[in-house]
């Protein structure tokens, strides 16, 4: 990576959700290991993709990095500051610098607020502008996401999904953040609208020098928008590399299966492609298999994989993989 300045760094980040029983005195009877030891660096100005199937913990990982969930253990270091030890006002203050764009453009905007109030919320929360300047700033933000500034007094339900997602983007940009977690920002949108939002995100990155963590299950879109991509399976990152390296030479058997499962909109290519069809379903994160989490579905698993967790290895060129076999 050019520049190579780390903006966000996680160190064996874990988030386990307790499963409890009892009415007044609650007993913990188990835990969902949504994120189970994630270590990665996000460089300033890059887009890091985090892909995986539903339930693999990618959304939880994003939210834990932003301290929307407090991690069970591990550290999140944002520009030199350990967020996991911050509380109250200092943490609230840090939130100004990191934001999130949500998956569901319908649920992520308060239906009882006008667009102006939605977008200006970060400004009010951090007292960034005077009440007078607020309107100007909101209009400027609307122009930035290419919405008509006349819309400020309308309500979210008057907008289409794509337009709402733009409003969500404007809100995320209001406090001039450096880092934005995009949590499946396009998966709820129509095919023809997805490209509009993706292009907008790319333009904004160029213009404002933003750093993105792009969480998605659409591998084609991730290849398009990201610089580096991490593949997650059952709470762990199994492979991470620069995108062309990862897509053209996937090493981990799960990554290989994932890549081959994505259909290509080209019948000529499709006829020639070999699919790796995985058996069965993703195991429950309450009781992940011992050893390599993927061992239960892995076509090349051997004895060792069922007992011993594979180490996180650097295979050169910034390509990391966690697998005994490759």
């Amino acid at each position: 990576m050019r520049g190579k300045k780390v903006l966000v760094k996680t160190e064996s980040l874990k988030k386990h959700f307790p499963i409890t029983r009892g009415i007044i005195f609650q007993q913990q009877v188990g835990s969902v290991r949504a994120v189970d030891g994630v270590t990665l660096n996000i460089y300033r100005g890059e887009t890091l993709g985090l892909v995986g199937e539903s339930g693999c913990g990618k959304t939880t990982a994003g939210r834990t990095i932003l301290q929307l969930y407090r991690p069970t253990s591990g550290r999140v270091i944002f520009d030199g500051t350990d967020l996991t030890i911050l509380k109250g006002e200092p943490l609230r203050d840090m939130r100004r610098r990191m934001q999130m764009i949500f998956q569901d453009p319908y649920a992520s905007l308060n239906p009882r607020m006008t667009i102006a109030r939605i977008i200006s919320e970060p400004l009010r929360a951090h007292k960034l502008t005077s009440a007078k300047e607020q309107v100007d700033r909101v209009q400027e933000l609307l122009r930035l996401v290419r919405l008509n500034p006349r819309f400020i007094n309308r309500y979210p339900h008057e907008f289409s999904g794509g337009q709402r997602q733009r409003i969500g983007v404007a809100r995320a940009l209001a406090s001039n953040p450096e880092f934005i977690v995009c949590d499946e920002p396009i998966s709820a949108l129509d095919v023809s609208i997805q490209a509009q939002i993706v292009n907008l995100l790319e333009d904004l990155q160029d213009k404002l020098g933003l750093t993105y963590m792009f969480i998605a299950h659409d591998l084609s879109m991730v290849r398009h928008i990201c610089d580096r991509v991490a593949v997650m399976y059952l709470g762990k990152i199994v492979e991470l590399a620069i995108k062309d390296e990862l897509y053209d030479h996937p090493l981990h058997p799960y990554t290989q299966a994932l890549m081959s499962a994505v259909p290509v909109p080209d019948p000529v290519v499709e006829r020639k492609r070999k699919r790796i069809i995985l058996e069965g379903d993703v195991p429950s994160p309450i009781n992940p298999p011992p050893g390599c989490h993927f061992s239960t579905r892995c076509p090349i698993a051997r004895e060792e994989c069922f007992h011993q967790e594979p180490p996180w290895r650097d295979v050169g060129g910034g390509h990391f993989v966690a697998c005994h076999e490759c």
Partner: protein
Amino acid sequence: MAPLLEVQDLTTRFYTLDGIVHAVNGISYTVEEGDTLGIVGESGCGKSVSVLSVMGLIPEPPGKIAAGQVLYKGQDLLQLDQKQMERIRGKEIAMVFQDPMTSLNPVLTIGHQIGESLIVHLGMGQKEARRQSVELLDMVGIPQAADRYSDYPHQFSGGMRQRAMIAMALACSPNIFIADEPTTALDVTIQAQIIDLVKTLRDQLGMAVIWITHDLGIIAGLAEKVLVMYAGFFIERGSVDDIYGDPRHPYTLALLKSVPRVDRTSKERLAVISGLPPDLLGLPPGCPFAPRCTYMVEQCRKENPCLEPIGFGHEIACWVDVTTGRER
């Protein structure tokens, strides 16, 4: 010989408080035995309504099939009453939906639900139905089918539920299998499993498949004939190679350009289709795609083009030849 299914000029509208929704506007297509037909379109383009109309599953009111014929083996399905239609549905034509959870009854076991259609349609006895259900579950790749027979839907994962739905749809060996975005709610690896399964079963059982989706990728690897739908109209029809190799309607062209591909990296920005899909409440005169179309000419605002052949089996509804950019 008459085709297996012939849909002619099908028009479905919904009469709502806000006005009349023109969901499907005079579409026609035929399905031969063993065909695989893909219907592609964005949400709200009427692709689901078009097959629900065929199945007689449009809630009336507010819906109404305003015109058209659905000829199955020469018999117009739209003229049948509920009872007669129930005999066709599930037995001759079967359908799976996007969300398997809403189509499965949560308080009955999976096996019971599959067996029921065997008993109703084929008049099997309890024992026979049970044996057959287990066989079906096994066929769609549910491990330990005999044990899973008495599981309830919530004990199945999303992918397994969809498999169970397929088993249910296949119970009476239908001639036509309609799949309405059955993999949209599923992960890619599970989606690959399901598509693989349907392909295998299609070749084994020789049924015709109608697959509805918004995902251009799925259709490319599955269908032989493709229909592209926009605002309740078919705007392009052709073989899968025509549609993907030589798309001639500006919408198809733009749609294909706007999706990135997993097998290559492009440095450029994605192509964008500006604006929004039209509101089916009040379609303007002329081509419904005109306001978003980069090839638009004067004629497009005035009159809506009909599907016209431009090659063998390749038809488009457009006034413009996209290869030259001029009116045809």
